[in-house]
């Protein structure tokens, strides 16, 4: 569970871009793709994203390892949309209450592609960005309050520890005779008890960490940054690239006549 979200020893081009620029592009693509459910804009964006993946040091197999839950979720969303959405056009398959028509299939496909196209930039961002660098950029460049940013960063380290702690508490409680067997109610009670144990430990750890940070002078008004967060020309290209992908996707969908603004429809 402690596996870091970023790639170890990743030296790809995008690792050198400022996290804030990458973050902005991810936000832009997410917003644009969330505007319409159509398969053209989604697949154009997706095609670009797949082309750009090597720049973040990702390969198809690494992508699958990191992103498979999201991809499966998108596929599931697409499938249920195709069978449950109101039928329009020719009926392709009809099994009782479930039916797939041309219209619902198109909608489902749009859903699937969109889910993947929205998820992948986030996977890409996490793969080529160190959380510490992201925090530096958010505090120094986006001027978010440093107490908040660094507090969150330090707390994130504890999340990995908590995953280990959960396992240990589970074993420790089994050794006391609290089993994960029995009726659903008993299991729920066992899980609640374990959660309480974890909560106690999490609060203890967090307060000790807070003492450590305070004892190191954290919380003062003035602070310097050992790592300067800087923008370079690479960041201009990153942002321009993001704008270009979004623009091409929207243009393609509009000219193909599939662009439908979900929020304006009714």
């Amino acid at each position, binding site marked *: 569970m402690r596996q870091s979200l970023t790639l170890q020893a990743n030296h790809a081009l995008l690792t050198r871009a400022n996290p804030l620029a990458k973050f902005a592009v991810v936000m832009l693509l997410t917003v644009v793709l969330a505007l319409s459910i159509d398969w053209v804009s989604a697949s154009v964006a997706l095609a670009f994203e797949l082309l750009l993946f090597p720049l973040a040091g990702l390969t198809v197999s690494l992508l699958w390892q990191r992103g498979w839950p999201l991809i499966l979720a998108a596929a599931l969303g697409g499938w249920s949309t195709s069978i449950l959405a109101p039928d329009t056009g020719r009926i392709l398959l009809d099994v009782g209450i479930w039916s797939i028509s041309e219209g619902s299939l198109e909608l489902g496909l749009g859903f699937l592609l969109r889910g993947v196209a929205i998820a992948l930039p986030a996977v890409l961002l996490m793969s080529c960005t160190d959380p510490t660098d992201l925090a530096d950029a958010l505090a120094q460049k986006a001027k978010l309050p440093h107490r908040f940013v660094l507090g969150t960063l330090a707390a994130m380290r504890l999340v990995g520890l908590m995953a280990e702690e959960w396992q240990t508490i589970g074993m420790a*409680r089994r050794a006391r005779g609290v089993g994960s067997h029995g009726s659903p109610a008993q299991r729920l009670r066992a899980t609640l008890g374990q959660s309480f*144990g974890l909560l106690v430990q999490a609060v203890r750890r967090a307060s000790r960490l807070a003492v450590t940070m305070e004892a190191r002078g954290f919380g003062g008004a003035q602070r310097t940054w050992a790592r300067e967060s800087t923008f370079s020309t690479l960041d201009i290209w990153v942002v321009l690239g993001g704008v270009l992908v979004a623009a091409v996707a929207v243009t393609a969908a509009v000219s193909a006549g599939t662009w439908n603004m979900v929020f304006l429809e009714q």
Partner: protein
Amino acid sequence: MTASHNVRPAAVTALGWGWRHAGRSLPAVRGLDLDIRPGERVLLLGPSGAGKSTLLHALAGVLGDSDAGAHHEGTPDAEDSDETGTLLIDGAPPRARRGRAGLMQQDPETQVVLSRVGDDVAFGAENLAVPRADIWTRVGEALDDVGLAHLPLDHPTSALSGGQKQRLALAGILAMRPGLLLLDEPTANLDPAGVLEVRDAVGRCLDKTGATLVVVEHRVGVWKDLVDRIVVLQPGSATESAVLLDGPPDQVLAQARDMLVAAGVWVPGYVPATRTRTAAAGAGGAAGTRGPAGAPGAAGAVPAAGNLLLAAEDLAVSRERPRRRGFKAIPPVPVQSGVTAQVRAGQALTITGPNGSGKSTFALTLAGLLQPVAGRVSATVDLSEGAGIDPYKWKAEQLISRIGTVFQEPEHQFVTGRVLDELMFGPRHLGHGEERVDELLERLRLTKLVDANPYTLSGGEKRRLSVATVLAAHPRVLILDEPTFGQDANTWAELASFLSELLDAGTAVVSVTHDQEFSDVLGGTELKLGAPELKPAARETGLNPGVAAP
């Protein structure tokens, strides 16, 4: 660059100082008068409850919050913390002297703030608004001073050992150039090698900077030669001073030896008296039943008198479960493999080895709490009594009456809010054995605490309770993970005597420990696990040739 030599040692003055924590009726410290000159090195001793940690936290400026809102109300009540007298660093309150004092606490995991070594050391200096160029000079020097200069600055802090984490914390403190080092049981959670690592690093840094030191620690022997003054605190009262004794180490130790021993302090050269084992298996009288402790690899090789209860064959262990990558399940990389051992009634098995060698993981696998990666753990008919051969497959109720496991951190095992309920929990689930609870309460001196909340007990009481709760289910095999870690000498002696009694009564006791004196008391055999191999190649192939008791 000799900037770190320019550290100005801090002076500490306490005048009738006292502190009551919010929500407590009694003060943690009361009437403390103490003067520490710049550059002095002080070891603080005293029973738990004497307020040693409170004093250190106050000096670090992290104690409570002089909550402005509460003071406006003008009516201080028990819900607010309360300070009396004065406590000064260089003539000013600690909170006004941010960065003059650096504090190191016990738990290595919470001494690390950031995920890369260089960033973590820089953190304190950044907070003190040190210019960027100077920060990295300080980081380099600090890492050098604590002996971690060989690590790259982007080395992940999660990959460090406990001793390394504490040294990293020390580096982070040094980078702030404090005039006062405050160490709150800095080595209590470390193995013997880690203890020396940290102690020596502290010594080097003090020699270099001349900073003032205040250290709280039970194990006097570790720090005695490094400090030049020992102060013994006692729970203060209206009539008595909080300082019981104060003077050069040898003088204080000579004066107060008996008193310190009685208070459970680990005085150098003193091993607490424990019960001697009487049964043949422990006394070493019966030939071949007892490998001398420390002799390599007697486990499993020597035929023994007691009945075989539990056996590990060619066992590979890991805490991780099989991971999924897409559709593919990847078996975990074992931290230790090829371990063979036997657990016999009335015999002690001690598991030793360096940090990271998978001692605890092995013990937990043996205890039926983790699934083996390879090899197997099998219970004999004697132990299983019809529950099946594989302890991991036993139901929780079946497990606790056969194999009891005491975890390193007692709090992990608390399942109720009252000491008595905690002890009755096992017997109630099993439907028998409640009559044994009174005897355990008595034997482990918990009778007066039956109505207390387990979380509020002292460290020694928690340890005794955790052993008692597991034994209440009457297991035939008792497995303990570092039972003596951080314990004072009194709890240590009680525990060792109690376990030796259990052994003589026929219980098998397996303990993971670094504590040679403890394993000497229990006797029995030793299983030495080898250092783990951390080569990336080994991680890839999943083959990790662990060396177990050759």
